């Protein structure tokens, strides 16, 4: 497991060695606050429902941008061959890269503290839904990351990884949303609703943590990480 720790450290560090991470974080924070604060004083309520409502749509672009590089770059530069010859197991590399990106996401979410701080200074918000919202955001983002990481492993072109990532996450996200369900055959509704990543995000954002949603997100993460490992292995046969 120390291998995983080493990879996490190396990967996490590398985020901050290029200006990209700072640009991402800055963009994310400015955009989320700005979009949220547009309506905040109009609604005049000390809560973060609006912020957590915008979040999935920002993460939809933010996460593939974070993950697109992770495998595609290694492939393009050929460093992946080097990585694979190192005495580390495939799943350790996948896990290391994944956890490093998760750490990066957690840090980004942590840096958004100015928004809850603002609601607390200007009113008396119910802290429960805010904590719940962050737990939900982390779970949702973690699932997006797993999908994004997997997609990045499919290509050596970062732009393609980004576009496929956004598309796949978007599809997985909206498939359980009302406007899709309205037009879906009745027999499929409950299945689609279950698959949709957004439907599981809803109640966490309200401050209700349901064990079913947690199990769902963990399953999605596990599945895509597993796919990622398999995809890596398949390289070796070529």
């Amino acid at each position, binding site marked *: 497991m120390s291998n995983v720790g080493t990879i996490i450290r190396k990967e996490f560090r590398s985020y901050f060695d290029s200006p990209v991470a700072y640009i991402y974080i*800055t963009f994310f*924070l*400015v955009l989320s*606050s700005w979009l949220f604060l547009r309506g905040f004083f109009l609604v005049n309520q000390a809560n973060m429902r609006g912020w957590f409502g915008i979040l999935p749509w920002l993460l939809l672009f933010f996460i593939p941008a974070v993950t697109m590089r992770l495998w595609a770059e290694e492939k393009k530069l050929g460093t992946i061959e080097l990585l694979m010859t190192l005495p580390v197991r495939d799943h350790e590399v996948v896990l290391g890269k994944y956890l490093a990106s998760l750490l990066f996401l957690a840090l980004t979410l942590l840096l958004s503290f100015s928004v809850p701080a603002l609601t607390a200074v200007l009113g008396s918000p119910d802290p429960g839904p805010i904590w719940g919202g962050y737990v939900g955001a982390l779970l949702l983002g973690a699932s997006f990351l797993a999908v994004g990481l997997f997609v990045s492993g499919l290509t050596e072109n970062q732009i393609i990884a980004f576009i496929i990532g956004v598309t796949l996450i978007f599809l997985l996200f909206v498939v359980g949303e009302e406007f899709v369900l309205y037009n879906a055959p009745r027999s499929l509704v409950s299945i689609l609703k279950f698959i949709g990543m957004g439907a599981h995000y809803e*109640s966490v954002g309200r*401050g*209700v943590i349901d064990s079913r949603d947690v199990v769902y997100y963990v*399953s999605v993460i596990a*599945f895509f990480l597993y796919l990622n490992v398999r995809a890596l292995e398949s390289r070796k046969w070529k």
Partner: protein
Amino acid sequence: MTAKRSTRGTNSLLLVAIVLAALVAVNLISQRRFFRIDLTEDRRYTLSSSTKKILKDLDDVVTVKVYFSRELPTYLMTLNQEVRDMLAEYGTYSGGNLLVEWEDPAENPETESRVRFLGIPQVQLQIIEKDQMQAVNAYLGVAVLYEDRSETIPVVESVENLEYDLTAAILKVFRDEEETVAVLQGDGVEPTLEEGLANARQALAERYRVLPYDPAGGEPVPAEAGALLVVQPDALSDRTLFEIDQFVMAGGSLLLFYDPIRLTAGSIRATPRLSGMEEMLARWGVRLGENVVLDPRDNQHAAFNQGYLTFTLPYPFWLNVRGENVNPANPIVNQLGGIVLPWAGTVAAAETPPEGIALDTLLWSSSYAWTRAGEYDLNPQQRFADAPREPGARLPLAVAATGVFPGFFAGKEIPPLPADREDGSDPTIAPPPQDRSIIESSDTTRVVVFGSGNMILDDMTNQFRANLVLLQNAVDWLSFGDELIAIRSRGVSDRPLREMSERGKTIARFLTTFGVPILVVLFGLARWIRRRNLRAEALAAMEASE
């Protein structure tokens, strides 16, 4: 090599399928055994013990049909979700005996007519589309169906009271016997079920068996009645009081609409009216005002005839209770708007309630209201010179009492039957029955008093339908109260921001949006500079060593 590769490929796919199947299985199991942690301060998403118990005790499948339009304005999407959430919560505790179906009535003419038959109306909603206000028609009703019985919640406007309404509906469709409501007739009570209370009777008959009760024969209130309705009592005899008292003592609940004045046909003057129940109610902590409330702000326009002319005027004697003056925690009134109390007297809760009784004021006038007592001039065109200049305290107009009531006749004799007032003939005073004992204290029960009897008479309910809903709610609350008592209404969650100047807002907005990002960028620059220096040092060291 190709063969080997394809086997490995197949194996790989198979493994992926197995992993997927395992994960699906885990998720299916998790659907059955799960828990929810409600992090909200007021446990908004936690069902009450009453509801959980009622759901657990379901022994047959009950269907909840949600007739919501699919296309709802964005501001109702939360409601839609919250209703879903609540029904999902219901489902988890019902052991599979609660079937929830969603249907948009507009999609199927057959459904639409069924929905209309169930009493679910189409409501008009405002939406903003392409920057234009538009009105759309939508359904927001819920029906609870069991066998051939149905209970409806015509319009769900918020989840505030949805739990109460839903659980009450489930209770009602399962109830084998119909609950009975007795209505006091005779002993000076003028409005009858045929005349004056015809609308009220009809509204009650939708859900209850309505039974007239005449105390003239000396009979007690029928034991099968769960609630007794008394409208406009007029100097009730002691014997009638005794029967009411004993009914309450036996666990029955009392719903009273008293009237402080006696109107005279064709006259604009009125005389005070005493119900005869003042003393008994005072013992229970409810004080009838012996006055009439006038409200210069929250009142109803009324039409008056003068010769051939009909004109409408704001009429301070007809109180129109506004939302902010309705007790938000009591399900009789908290969903209602437009409750009109004509010529109402105050109904006040005692400041220190009698032991064992909890008192709740349900309705108030505005803070501009004042009272008159004595002889009443009801003329709408008079000068209301006695109106106060400054707003004062709101005046209470209805009170609900819950608890164990002390018997008003405890330690007294059973009063004799009064003489027949109608024909004035030989007083037939019957001796007190020997076989009856006096119950001296009640079980937990309820008494609800409204300050206007006119408010549920036909003349008024023809115009003000909300008053009939109020009557139904009150009887529901009195009949099902015990089973539903643990259900609290979910307050509207309102956490407003502090008052702020525009400048302050701009600063707050700026700090929140750019504060942290600036720090992040500064950190990045510092790190970059440090790395550059390190690199330069390393290069210099390398050069030096060469």
